[in-house]
């Protein structure tokens, strides 16, 4: 089963609106990361939040982390058509002595111009 699950699966908004995506995970983590994927190809790292952090900002991105609820959210403010992509959260869970990054199924975001 997936360690991280994004919600919603799909999100459609107008340019200028804010987009919020959520991620839930199951086991203890040392950090959580958000990635963006265009056209089903390589993922691009957006932001990393450590388990002892509660909120982090990067440009128009804001990430929150609630370790008690095992959840995170990614907020994209003032969205643009170019933000259209799939967004994934990744958690590095300890598995057999190794940290294996696991990804959810992603949120497909469409921003209409």
């Amino acid at each position, binding site marked *: 089963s997936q360690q991280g699950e994004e919600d919603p699966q799909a999100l459609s908004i107008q340019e200028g609106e804010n987009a919020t995506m959520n991620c839930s995970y199951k086991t203890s983590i040392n950090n959580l990361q958000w990635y963006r994927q265009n056209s*089903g190809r390589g993922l691009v790292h957006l932001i990393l939040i450590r388990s002892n952090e509660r909120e982090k900002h990067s440009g128009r991105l804001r990430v929150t982390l609630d370790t008690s609820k095992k959840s995170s959210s990614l907020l994209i403010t003032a969205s643009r058509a170019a933000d259209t992509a799939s967004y994934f959260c990744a958690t590095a869970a300890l598995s057999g002595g*190794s940290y294996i990054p696991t990804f959810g199924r992603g949120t497909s975001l469409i921003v209409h111009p």
Partner: protein
Amino acid sequence: GAGVSQSPSNKVTEKGKDVELRCDPISGHTALYWYRQSLGQGLEFLIYFQGNSAPDKSGLPSDRFSAERTGGSVSTLTIQRTQQEDSAVYLCASSFGTGGSYGYTFGSGTRLTVV
């Protein structure tokens, strides 16, 4: 190199043939990961290499899949006797160290189509 390089970018093969997919990680990155992504799905972990340690093969779906990493750098994922369900995008990522503290850098993937 500047990024993670994967080749070929696209591969069409006939069912039953063997294929080799290559990943050239960022120089100095000790950890290397292979994932598979079917259309509209998330990333499925396949195999993980860390330095000179034995690889974590727990995600390989069958014994038709194998991977090696030579000299702690380039990795090759081999799929023998390909099946149509092997059709997917195969993604490689590398990182400095383990635990993800420095993020993961992905290649652009190899889109494999088995006909």
